[in-house]
Structure formats: structure tokens, C-alpha cells
């Protein structure tokens, strides 16, 4: 079923919208959630909550790209759940490794985060991504949006793991420069 037809089901308050969403994007969403949470039950919970959030937000919204619309909701719910579950300590999951990598350039201080304008930060990240070569941009997004492992990224992009690691390392250094230049406190 076309995305527009599924969105129309939401607008018509037809509950089959959720079934159709799950048929088309269930695997995609479960993968996003699992990459962050590494737990099937928690992932299923986030995916189910994703459909409820979509139900509550469509209408008034009418997303053109349902995949990324649902994907963003699911990723957001998964990260929030991850943060609640690991408030005291990290456990060595893939998400933990991603955070460790980012901390090498972002630091660990959260003092300025309370007053941070998230929309501005997202805009700065978009600017940073647009400055990257397309291959590196794909690697960066697969690593820090989709939370893929280095091995999976190297397999999908048909390149060596060492090249992926090196490219990401350089991209993170570039990210630090970019954010500092944009006036963010690290």
C-alpha cells in the first residue's frame, strides 16, 4: 500500500492504519529500535508506541515520507527508553560504543545542554552532513542515526572495516570543528 493511502487511513481514523503501517514498516522500525536497545521486548514496545504516537499526531500532520516519519518517532522513543534504562551505568551495547565514540569529540559535560536549542543543533548537524562526501555521510548516518555496527556498515557499503573506522574518526573530528565554529559549547 502506498504511503499516502496509509496516511489517509490515519486521517480517516481507520485503525487499520496501524496494521498497514506494521505490515510495511514493522521490520524497519524493529531494526531501528533493536539497534539502540538490543532487547526484543523493549524494541517491540517502542514500535507499538510508535504507532500510537503516529495515531495521535496524524492528523494534523500529513507526512510525505512515512518511513522516516515513523523511523524518527521510533528512534526518539528508543533513545529515551535507553537513557532511562542506563541512567546509572552503561553496559557495553552498540549504543554505548556509539556514545563513547562521540564523547571523544563532544566531551562529557552536560552543563550547557539544558539551555541548548535542539532545533539549532539539528540544523548545525544538517550543515555538517552536507559538507561531507556522500560515502562518509552515509557512514555517519548509518552509524549515528541507524546505530549500525562498524561491521554491518562495512558489509553494506562494500568497504573495509578499517576504512569505515578511519572515515568516521575523521568525520567526528570535523564535526567537532563544525560545532565549535557554529558556537556550540563542547
Amino acid at each position, binding site marked *: 500500500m502506498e504511503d499516502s493511502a496509509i496516511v489517509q487511513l490515519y486521517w480517516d481514523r481507520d485503525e487499520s492504519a496501524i496494521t498497514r503501517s506494521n*505490515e510495511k514498516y514493522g521490520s524497519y522500525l*524493529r*531494526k531501528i529500535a533493536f539497534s539502540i536497545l538490543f532487547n526484543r521486548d523493549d524494541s517491540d514496545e517502542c514500535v507499538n508506541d510508535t504507532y500510537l504516537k503516529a495515531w495521535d499526531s496524524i492528523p494534523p500532520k500529513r507526512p510525505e515520507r512515512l518511513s522516516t516519519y515513523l523511523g524518527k518517532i521510533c528512534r526518539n522513543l528508543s533513545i529515551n527508553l535507553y537513557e532511562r534504562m542506563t541512567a546509572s551505568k552503561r553496559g557495553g*551495547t552498540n549504543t554505548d560504543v556509539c*556514545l563513547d565514540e562521540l564523547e571523544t569529540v563532544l566531551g562529557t559535560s552536560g552543563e550547557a545542554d539544558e539551555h541548548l536549542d535542539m532545533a539549532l543543533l539539528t540544523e548545525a*548537524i544538517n550543515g555538517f*552532513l552536507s559538507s561531507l562526501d556522500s560515502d562518509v555521510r552515509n557512514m555517519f548516518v548509518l552509524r549515528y542515526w541507524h546505530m549500525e555496527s562498524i561491521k554491518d556498515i562495512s558489509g553494506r557499503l562494500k568497504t573495509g572495516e578499517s576504512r569505515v573506522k578511519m572515515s568516521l574518526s575523521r568525520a567526528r573530528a570535523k564535526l567537532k570543528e563544525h560545532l565549535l565554529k557554529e558556537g556550540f*559549547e563542547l
Partner: protein
Amino acid sequence: MRAITFLKAMNDIDDSNIEAAEKAEEKNRVTQFPSWLNIKTVTAIAAALVITVTLGIVLTKKDDKTMAVNPMEQVITTGEAEELTGYPLTVPESFMESRKTELFVYNGQMTEVNYVDRKGEIVLTVRKAPGDEDISGNYNEYDKTDRIEAGGTVYTLKGNKGMINLVLFTRDGYSYSVDCAPGMTIEEALELAHEIR
């Protein structure tokens, strides 16, 4: 800045960046078909698809809704894989420190099960498909190759430095491959292979 704050801000990046990364993934996955899916098979499948679509025949049905055959489909349970392939699949839930995490079905014929450790690394890949060809897609050259018969099944064991990295065998008309990058002992390999049906 906390890294988790950055990850949250990443959430709303431009859709085009998310989609471009996913397309890169799809493009690569097409090239990851197993060795048995040679050009003749691809051509035959393509021809069959064209004919089928032309005739407007429903290829598969699920919940009374029509669905197109997917060259590679991710599923959640072995039961869903069995529905697509039509043959039973038995694999262990976990292996060493890894867990059964990803299941894929290729063209409704070959099932692939990936076992992922806590770092998100794939440590074991099990494949099953009808026939007797090598379906591993692993073309590495190993120091040693042995053939061992156990319980009426002949196992081909390949590996380096005294460890087993690849196990190939056929049983009851199906070909199996067990690919373990970190390596396992012969006993572990045979025990694992015996569990897989």
C-alpha cells in the same frame, strides 16, 4: 555536550540523508546474494517475475492482502521464515555470548540467521537452502580443510590456527553453512551443526 544530546538532535536530520543511507544499504544488499544465485538463476527469477506481473497473478497472500515477492525479506521469527520458504528451520536461540537476532529470507528460498553479540557484531551466520551447493558466500581461503563424518552427515570444516571458521554440510536435501568469524572448536562446531535442521 553530552553525546546522548547529540544523538537526540540527530533524530530530526533531513529525511534525504536518512533515505540516502538506506538506499546505499539496499544497493549493497542486492550484491550479497549467495553463490548459488548465479546469473542463470537471477535471469530465471526475473523472467518469472515479469511473466507473473504481466499476467496479474497474485504471488503470495497474507491476511488476505496481496504482497509482492521480495528478493530479500527480513523476518522476526523462524516461523515467519518457514512461511516464506515452505521448509522447517531449527536453530539454537543463542551461541556463546551472542543471540539469534536477524533473520532474512532470500527469494523465498534461502534463510539466513545472524547471531549478534552485545557490541552489535555478527559473530555467527547460519544459512539453509534447498540443494547441495555451497551457500555460504564465504570465499576466504583457510589454512586447513577437513571432512568429518558424524551421525551419517559429512561435514566440511574450514579454519585457521586450529579453529573452525566455516562448516558446510548437506542433510535431507538441504544445504547448510555455518560461518563463525571468531572461530570455534571442532566439538563446538559439530555440536552446533547437529542442532541445526
